[in-house]
């Protein structure tokens, strides 16, 4: 699992590559920690992410909660049908904005 954080066009963008399974949740959460404290809209680019576990969802929800507290948006980009199904099955689709 590879996580890259960049500031692009005034947004904080996280590029996720690989499988966000339970084993990589701690390291991914650490890599995404700049997103918790940033004061910008956030884009999580999932174009190259092929799986998300419950732990991965918890990271996304944590980032969303922090961002909403600051009146910021969290966009999820490039999501695959399989990952979308996980969001739908857990009932979190409507919380996020998908690009």
């Amino acid at each position, binding site marked *: 699992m590879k996580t890259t954080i960049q500031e692009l066009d005034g947004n904080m963008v996280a590029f996720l590559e690989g499988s966000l399974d339970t084993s990589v949740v701690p390291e991914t959460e650490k890599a995404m920690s700049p997103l918790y404290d940033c004061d910008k809209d956030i884009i999580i680019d999932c174009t190259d992410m092929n799986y998300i576990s*419950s732990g991965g969802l918890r990271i996304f929800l944590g980032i969303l909660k922090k961002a909403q507290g600051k009146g910021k948006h969290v966009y999820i980009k490039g999501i695959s049908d399989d990952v979308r*199904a*996980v969001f*739908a*099955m*857990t009932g*979190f689709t*409507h919380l996020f904005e998908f690009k």
Partner: protein
Amino acid sequence: MGNKVTLDAHGEALMQQYRELKPTLEQLAKDAFALLSDALKEQGIYVTAMEYRVKKEHSLEGKIELKGAKYKSIDDITDLVGLRVITFYTDEVDKVAAIAQRIFDIDWQESVDKRRLHELDAFGYNSLHYICRMKEGGPRFELQMRTALQHVWSTIEHDTGYKGDVKIPREYLRQFSRLAGMLELIDNEFSRLRLVLTDYQRQIQALVKNGQLKDVPLSPDSFRNYLDLHPFDRLNKRIAAVNQAEIYPVSMMPYLPVLESFGIETLEDVQHFIDENSEDAFQLAVSQLAVTNLDILSSAKALEYLCLVYVLNHDGGRKGLKFIYDTINGESDTNNILADMILEQARTLSFMNNN
């Protein structure tokens, strides 16, 4: 451009005092505005608008040209700084006034409740004006408090300039007077309506609390109160138990339009909807979740499954399922994928084969 103003020596002296005082006035305007804003916020009073201004030089020159002899010093002019609060309702004007009395020193000699100045056949619809001073001292300033409709009246009155040199015929004054009366009546009706609605909300809350759901129409307010009874908790916990999942709290209000689209009219109907669809909803949840290791679910999941099985049991098909997802997630073609996923998972379930 305004006409050139001619001031005598006393007027010029007043203007000089004003120029020297201006930085103080600007700071005062900001401080008084901030103090009042914070106090209103603290008391939960939301107003239509709040504004402040320091009197412009040309405006003061005009005033001094007209009435300069009346003022011994610049301190006698009380509206160099003006604050204005525009409220929604008439009773809120008095609430703002009460707060102003607490946070500022009020000069009662100079303050005017123009609302009470009118005779029975009076003309005009005005506001409450206080002349205030910060508790710590400094120049006085004017605080105007009025409703939105009083503001409309004052603005139009100012625009028409009926107080000018030309004598307005009695017929037109009477038209103004009629409009003023109408605005006052509307203001009072809005306040009355608000009281009625607040009372209605309290009644609904009491009915929901006492479980008298039959008499409670489904609405955003009643549904919100109903959710305080945690009507979906039992099913949520059954579903969560499938994977020993954590239930993550989210709002269920986005589902209200879906329930309304099912023809549900009262909270009792919602209760029946839960009772009648819970077993099927649980079946669908198990078929979807048991093959995964997802151990976090939104608290809206039970309600979502109830809505999905309701559609399946009423032959809503793919279109009906997509409508639910479109309503909750926002319209998108990808909601067709979610609808197809549910259709596929529900195909083998007993309730689908009993219909």
